């Protein structure tokens, strides 16, 4: 039973345009959400996070939006750059646990 779902296995975007990566979750006990970025042959690196008390968090070109009623979050990258090409994982955690639950990942390709 996948509690965190990334339904798009891949996304292709032109350089300079917006990339939107989506994530849905089923567990209403999740209260903290993170995005990780992973290049081939490297470990995932933390990108941005959002607490359930917020609906938006911004860090430079990266913005995460949270819609709690829809149990949906999204990562916006504006403008997209070729170096953003990577696998992006959405993850969620509960207030009463130390574990993260990850989605399957979305491969982003930014074409120049």
């Amino acid at each position, binding site marked *: 039973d996948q509690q*965190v779902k*990334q339904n798009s*296995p891949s996304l292709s975007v032109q350089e300079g345009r917006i990339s939107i990566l989506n994530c849905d979750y089923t567990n209403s006990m999740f209260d*903290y959400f*993170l995005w*990780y970025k992973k290049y081939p*042959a*490297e*470990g*995932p*690196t*933390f990108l941005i*996070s959002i607490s359930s008390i917020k609906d938006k968090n911004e860090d430079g070109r990266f913005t995460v939006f949270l819609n709690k009623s829809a149990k949906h979050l999204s990562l916006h990258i504006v403008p997209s750059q070729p170096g953003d090409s990577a696998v992006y*994982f959405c*993850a969620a*955690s509960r*207030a009463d*646990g*130390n*574990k*993260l639950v*990850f*989605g*399957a*990942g979305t491969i982003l390709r930014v074409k120049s």
Partner: protein
Amino acid sequence: DVKVTQSSRYLVKRTGEKVFLECVQDMDHENMFWYRQDPGLGLRLIYFSYDVKMKEKGDIPEGYSVSREKKERFSLILESASTNQTSMYLCASSFPLGTGGETQYFGPGTRLLVL
């Protein structure tokens, strides 16, 4: 900077061999984790440890065991490697939840091939 290192980047083992994967972190993190990453399945938690000598099963512990004798070191053991354990193995560490523990820091990964 947080540094999480893994003992090997690539390993090739034969079916039935005992395999040790080691992970060391230098940030005095209480929590340490072992995941495997497979295409289309994302990162799945094998085991985690929240203190020395403490461990808890993750989502897919079958065929694996772990050891945490020192705070900075967390080992994953495949008692008898099988071909379905061919995967990328990722170690991570974090502070406890509520003290920044929501963010985990990952090592570079070990790509294991079992023949």
